[in-house]
């Protein structure tokens, strides 16, 4: 941009990222600064593009399974679930009940792990280091429990069409129950450490308010939408798997600020614990894989959309099949992308420090935005 001589420059540009630690990935936000305040901003995405959707066209249905652990690596099991659900609906595969229960238990454990990681990393953004260590201590427990059954600690590839890979054992169930008691005893510590902390309250109350209208306009889902007071949760509104069997609440916020989104996530973890507890009590016996799932899956011509509630919001898989062993097209509807699109409107006329707080509160996984 050329400036004419004699005209004073009013605003200047500031690059946040792509290597900025608070973006948690390679996201670049171009900020037009008016002094300390942000006049305009534009997120620049695509640095972590891995062509996940194109990859699906070149692989068979089974071969695409490991990709789902890598779109959003923090809540990988929900993505496993979403994709398996879509393919099962397309091919008409019935999943045995025990497998569905195992899916719900592991998926909810993974949701807790995802929220705990957000909790720690977000407070790191705000300059608080201690809570990070506490929640990683708890998260380590979840990861260990999941490691025992899925065989990996992060990029899970556990669900299969028609069931799950491995059965859970008594040690897993005992581990889950011990973890539930443990995490419940920690809520008080988290409250003392963070929720009641005056610095945290001052930085998050009435900052980054998403109004319900804004949230709906941008297609924001997940805790960000529920923080704005709209009780929309795929597990309730479009029930999948065995979620209708369980009794759980959908926590919502009132004002839609960062504090509300934070509280919603904390309370959601408690609801996940409740779901796991009920699922462990009701766990039926039986097979974990559907019978007669062909090794070379060839669904009939058609298209299907299946959505699941991931830790960040609605994750949808849209598959178009032309009756081949490979999908014709897969479209992944990722929540982080919609949640990111609201950022320009949210950070207008705020300070850079608040902008970091707002960006973190959306719980973005940047590789998921780019996918």
């Amino acid at each position, binding site marked *: 941009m050329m400036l004419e001589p004699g005209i004073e420059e009013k605003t200047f540009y500031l690059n946040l990222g792509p290597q900025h630690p608070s973006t948690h990935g390679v996201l670049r936000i171009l900020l037009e600064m008016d002094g300390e305040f942000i006049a305009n901003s534009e997120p620049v995405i695509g640095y972590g593009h891995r062509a996940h959707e194109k990859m699906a066209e070149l692989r068979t249905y089974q*071969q695409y399974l*490991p990709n789902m652990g890598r779109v959003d690596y923090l809540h990988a099991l929900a993505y496993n679930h979403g994709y398996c659900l879509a393919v099962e609906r397309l091919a008409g595969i019935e999943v045995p009940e025990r497998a569905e229960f195992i899916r719900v238990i592991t998926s909810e454990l993974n949701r807790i792990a995802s929220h705990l990681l957000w909790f720690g990393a977000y407070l790191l953004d705000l300059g608080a280091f201690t809570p990070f260590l506490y929640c990683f201590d708890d998260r380590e427990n979840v990861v260990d429990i999941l490691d025992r059954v899925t065989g990996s600690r992060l990029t899970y590839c556990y669900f299969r069409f028609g069931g799950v890979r491995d059965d859970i054992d008594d040690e897993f169930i005992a581990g889950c129950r011990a973890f539930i008691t443990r995490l419940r005893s920690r809520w008080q510590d988290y409250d*003392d450490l963070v929720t009641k*902390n005056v610095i945290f309250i001052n930085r998050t109350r009435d900052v980054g308010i998403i109004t319900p209208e804004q949230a709906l306009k941008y297609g924001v889902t997940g805790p960000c939408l529920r923080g704005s007071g709209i009780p929309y949760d795929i597990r309730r509104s479009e029930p999948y798997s065995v979620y209708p069997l369980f009794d759980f609440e959908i926590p919502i916020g009132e004002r839609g600020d960062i504090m509300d989104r934070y509280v919603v996530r904390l309370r959601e973890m408690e609801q996940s614990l409740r779901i796991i507890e009920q699922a462990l009590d009701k766990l039926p016996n039986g097979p974990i894989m559907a019978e007669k799932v062909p090794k070379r899956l060839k669904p009939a011509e058609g298209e299907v959309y299946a959505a699941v509630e991931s830790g960040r919001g609605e994750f949808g898989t849209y598959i178009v099949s032309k009756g081949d062993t490979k999908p014709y097209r897969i479209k992944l509807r990722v929540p982080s992308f919609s949640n990111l699109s609201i950022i320009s409107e949210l950070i207008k006329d705020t300070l850079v420090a608040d902008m970091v707080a707002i960006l973190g509160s959306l719980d973005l996984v940047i590789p998921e935005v780019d996918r």
Partner: protein
Amino acid sequence: MVAYFREMFVGLWSLVAGMAVTIRYFVRPIVTVQYPRQKLTMTPKYRGHIELIMDPETNTHRCTACGMCVRTCPSSLITVEGVKVKKKKLPVKHVIDYSYCSLCGLCVEVCPTKALKFSNEYRLAGYQRQDMVIDLMARLDAERATVGLPPLPIPTPESEEETTSAEEKA
């Protein structure tokens, strides 16, 4: 005025309450593991790279070099070459390039003779790419050596024409 001081007091108290949590955990036993000196055992289902199962009865592998794992692998990182010996196919080469592996486990599931399993190996690091290329037959020989058995004899085909690469077939 009262509200101002009250807010200040509540704020200060919240910091003290947070500090109390830290102090309480300060006197509890530590939870971290001092890694190079202390090591955790991996869970039995831990998925490392794949390896051939040594059959306890015959003390050899069950691989028939059918090439199912080669075809199912999303990253095409498995190379299997087999030869026909007395109408039975045996592998002469079973190599994986672990650096491309995404640990999905499809090869283990698809194997018709259940010849593959996951190893418990997690301390893998190398100075070059070639270090991540793992020869499963050599690993099996090493496992045989631990029970005092010689390396497997390399199967020789009856005639040159019968040598077929599983990759070519696929």
